[in-house]
């Protein structure tokens, strides 16, 4: 069942469930953050509407910097703004930022200790028709490897808004990962959110779970659908929302592993270096259990609808169910 404590969206399993892109939640969150703190500023590399930064730019034109199609400049100018006490959010597509400008982010933001939020929209395979050049499947790996840098991948638009507001207050460099497509709204305004804290979204009605499922990002609704069907088949699971990939919630992951002794991780990202790898790093050091990784396996994406691509690269509901059953058999 859905965790009753979290006041999640009761309509998540119905066909009419509201769908909103995470980037919209970001846009609304940034506007609000701008209203709350005059030091919040925004920069964009010619993708203001696509990343929904236009809400902020229209309201606060004097605190918005349009740098043109120049992602290296985007983040380094942001570093300079931060040096003067501003709280910059810089947005582009994840493939270009942090894809193109990684060294500038490393040196002038992470290494430099500058409180800049890198917002990478259009991450994952669900970018769809634009094809492989625009589908960032490596960005979590790029950003989580940087010391002194937080990484957050919200599961829906409401959580993206809360994450944006939280990041406006954070004293650290950070990466916020967003998706182009509309995804079902899993949480509600009442659902609590705290950076660095994982949450159990789904749990067995009674008894212990047999498999722990950890999700970052927009595939959360598919994981919940899979968990519901698995429950009907007699397989008990817990589904964890690991929105903050770094700093990782070690305690929550270990607690889940100790209960289930088998895990599945789910993300729209390369298996190499992504959230699943981060979870594995935690588990192999302290409490090794079998893990199945749902993610893209050493391939670039291609054009198609999000649904077609999610199916093709093995990220869909049936793949999740298969992985759960597979890891169950591997339990010792």
């Amino acid at each position, binding site marked *: 069942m859905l965790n009753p404590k979290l006041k999640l969206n009761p309509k998540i399993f119905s066909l009419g469930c509201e769908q909103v892109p995470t980037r919209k939640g970001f846009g609304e969150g940034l506007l609000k953050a701008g209203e709350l703190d005059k030091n919040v*500023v925004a920069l964009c590399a010619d993708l203001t509407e696509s990343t929904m930064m236009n809400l902020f730019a229209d309201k606060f034109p*004097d*605190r918005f*910097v349009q*740098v*043109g199609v*120049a992602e*290296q*400049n985007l983040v*380094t*100018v*942001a*570093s*300079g*703004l*931060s*040096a*003067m*006490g*501003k709280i*910059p959010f810089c947005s582009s597509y994840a493939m270009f930022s942090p894809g193109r400008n990684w*060294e*500038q982010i490393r*040196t*002038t933001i992470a*290494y*430099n*200790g500058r409180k800049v939020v890198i917002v990478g929209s259009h991450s994952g395979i669900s970018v769809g028709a634009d094809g492989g050049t625009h589908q960032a499947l490596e960005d979590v790996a790029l950003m989580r490897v940087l010391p002194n840098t937080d990484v957050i991948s919200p599961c829906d638009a409401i959580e993206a808004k809360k994450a944006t507001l939280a990041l406006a207050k954070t004293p650290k460099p950070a990466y916020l990962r967003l998706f182009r497509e509309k995804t079902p709204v899993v949480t509600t305004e009442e659902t609590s959110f705290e950076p660095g804290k994982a949450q159990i979204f789904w749990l067995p009605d009674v008894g212990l779970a047999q498999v722990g499922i950890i999700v970052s990002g927009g595939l959360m609704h598919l994981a919940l659908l899979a968990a519901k069907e698995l429950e009907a088949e007699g397989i008990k699971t817990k589904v964890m929302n690991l929105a903050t990939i770094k700093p990782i919630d070690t305690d929550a992951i270990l607690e889940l592993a100790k209960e289930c002794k088998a895990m599945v991780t789910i993300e729209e990202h390369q298996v190499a270096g992504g959230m699943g790898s981060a979870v594995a790093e935690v588990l192999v050091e302290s409490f090794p259990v079998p893990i199945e990784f749902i993610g893209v396996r050493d391939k670039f994406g291609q054009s198609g609808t999000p649904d077609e691509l999610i199916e093709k690269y093995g990220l869909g509901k049936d793949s999740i169910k298969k992985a759960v059953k597979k890891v169950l058999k591997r339990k010792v």
Partner: protein
Amino acid sequence: MLTEKKILELEQKANDIRISVIEMLLEAGSGHSAGSLGMADIFTILFFHILKHDPKNPFWEGRDRLILSNGHIAPVYYATMAHAGYFPIEELKTLRKFGTRLQGHPHREYMPWLETSSGPLGSGLSQAVGMALADRMDCGADTHRFIYCLMSDGELDEGNSWEAAMLAGKHKLRNLIAVVDRNNIQIEGFTEDIMPLEPLSDKWRAFNWHVIETVGHDFKSLNEAFEEAQAIFEKPTVIIAHTVPGQGVDFMEHDFKWHGIPPGIRDMTGEPSKEEQGKLALRELRTLGGKIKSEHQ
């Protein structure tokens, strides 16, 4: 106002800083000689005449900001700051050693009053642009702070440099003053052989900057250049400072071999033996120090 007396003081200070640079490099056994010596006069006039700053209160809000984009000339940056009173001159000997605040390339985690960390080339100017934009957001046209960015000519190969130049031109950032160390060398050779930059002034003008060319070793000319840059209201200004790499040490001058190495580690054709390099350099600078005094007295 730059009096004759002040010029004499600056010349002596620059010479002391060059001596420190050679001593640091000898002690470290690695580091960049040519650019450090070549930029000593510009660092000197900035820290001892141009900049609004307070070494005893390095985080003073009203200070001018100085970004060193080409972080590899850290020796002259550190030496100048030590001579200006930011930290003890004695500490210069720790350059590049384990546990030092004087990292091989500047890192503000170790020395928080550095305005930025640098080393990877081409991203200093855009940070300076960000600072200038923030200053304008806060102070509008009333700003009394300037953002200075010191850069090398070699790093103008980087696209990021020109992205920054374009944005500064767009916003007419009059509070931004860039200084290009036009010493015509980079690590593998002469700039015009590796990647021609000329016509360099025209390039900056085409990006809507005000351009001043000056000799980088003449305090009177440098002072005029900075005064002109501060007075320009419509545009950012770039001072293209023609400098001599290795300035002050005869066997290093104009020679790209000395871009990335210190004296005392390598025997090279046409150069003094490695045992002699440090001694010769220091002797020459110390003699020059004497010359400066006698010329003016």
